[in-house]
């Protein structure tokens, strides 16, 4: 039996200590599973949240990010269209994002307070300068969707 190398080499970045460059290029096949409805909804211009279906559960508000099962009683939830208007709960403008960030900077991140929702969804303000308490409305990237949470953003209402 004879074994041959494939001829590729690891680039040497430093001689002593020996430092080499390990090339990494692979992708993950990621399923949104039960949350798919939410992301498909964004492509269709809908903001879909969930609500617990257990009549005995105390939590009657909507969850956004959605949950297919309730955190308080583990029962199944149902999908409900959430209001597409809200208020800026807090914000921060990112100047130095991490490497894979797909939007331009400066990018104002916002957490959005929506009536009837028990959480404060993280998103970004597509236009304008953010201020706490500012009314905003959702906009959906339906033209050329990224199929990620970036397909939802907000503008001043």
């Amino acid at each position: 039996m004879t074994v041959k190398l494939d001829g590729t080499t690891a680039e040497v970045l430093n001689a002593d200590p020996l430092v080499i460059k390990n090339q990494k290029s692979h992708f993950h096949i990621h399923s949104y599973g039960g949350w798919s409805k939410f992301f498909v909804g964004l492509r269709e211009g809908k903001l879909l949240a969930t609500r617990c279906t257990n009549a005995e559960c105390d939590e009657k508000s909507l969850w956004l990010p959605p949950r297919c099962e309730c955190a308080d009683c583990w029962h199944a939830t149902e999908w409900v269209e959430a209001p597409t208007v809200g208020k800026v709960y807090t914000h921060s403008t990112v100047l130095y994002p991490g490497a894979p960030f797909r939007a331009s900077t400066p990018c104002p991140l916002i957490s959005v307070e929506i009536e009837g929702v028990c959480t404060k969804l993280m998103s970004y303000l597509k236009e304008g300068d953010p201020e706490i308490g500012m009314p905003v409305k959702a906009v959906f990237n339906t033209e050329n969707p990224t199929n990620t949470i970036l397909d939802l953003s907000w503008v001043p209402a």
Partner: protein
Amino acid sequence: MIRFGPRNLRIPRFEKPVYVVAGGLTDFRKKYPEKNSSQLCTEALRMAVEENDLKVSPEEVRRMVNWCVYSQFADHFGDQLLAAAKIHDYLGFDPLGNIEVKTGGATGGSSILSAAQAVASGYADCVPVIGWERMDEVPTKVGNAYIASAACKDFESELGWMYAAYYALMAQRYQYENKVPRETLAQIACKNHEYACYSPYSQNPGKYTIEDVLKNEVVADPLSFLECCVMSVGAAVLFLADEETAYKMTDQPIRLTAICGGTHTLRTADRRHMPILLLPNETEETYKDYFSHERTEWPGFSSFLASRMAAYLAYNMAGINDPVEDFDILETHDAFTISDIQTYEDIGLRPYGRGREFIESGDAYFEGRLPTNLSGGLIGTMHAVGATGIWQVVELLWQLQGKWDKFHADPERWTRYGKKKPDDFRSLQVEGAKRACAISHAGTGSHVTCAILEKP
């Protein structure tokens, strides 16, 4: 709304007393190609067994160990799954059992908690906790993305790939509710960078003015680079033992009277409100005027429920009534200046809404009532994530043993890391320190541990 059942808030108990007997560190650097991770862990272990005035030889320690705990945050940074197995073998501990713990930024604290549970239950009586992180294999921007993959990849990571931004969201809300002067936040950065000047282990020492911090470039509004923790390479080791073993190993064991953990949502978004969980030094009266037009709920984005939970359990477990009075020294997880102020409130140094007073009053300084982060903290000295919570307790162990000078002031300590002891060096040994506390913290408050150490 979160509701507790009657047993949810049960105060934890150790069946046997747990002691901390020895600690060791490497220095911490942004890049450390000279030594691989196995070597860094060995170096910290050797310091623990060779330089802590133990009554037993390193070889005898090796024969006493009966369980090991490993602490590393992120496999993808080191690009090696099961690195703990590789290091366990490298250290020659096979075939003893081990476990690797992972709870984000609080991995070090959780690893100590895991080791303490082993000792307290009688499962083991001599346990090294070995932590490290290697964050230099990728460029900083990729490193930030790796860290942000410890946020929710479906709903949050894509929004910036940057943890500083997630903290900055909380910072803006905290400031809206509490209006802390920017100068006060900058004071924390100046303090910790300065204390790092007196540590031979530190990565990012510097004497900065408040002006320097305020003029520094912003990462995510309002946090500047000088207000954020560093990304590091390095290791830390701590030995835990039961009482009999501890006194066999050293004349100066320090008792770990409590270490407790709390959690809260990984996504900041998913935090729901609840009544404030009160610490022993608070009553409902403390908060009768707390809520307002701005402060509509608790914990909101201004407080860390996980930190409050960990402190609630640990204070009740160790009999702490007033942390500022009862502790002589404190190490917080100062990942960002703003989170440090939030933590002051969560662990009861000041009531909610008044955290700024802890730094403004001078309490947090070496000369103050509760010197905090004399190690230089995560802002000044290191955040080699898996080592961080362990390093905090190693520093406190040396403080309580009265050995801070031995491990910081000897010029040889500096030359071994290729540094020169500064001419304006000053000792940060807290004379007569008896009781100390360390907070280890992950995510935007997803996991927090609170450890309490006491001189027997």
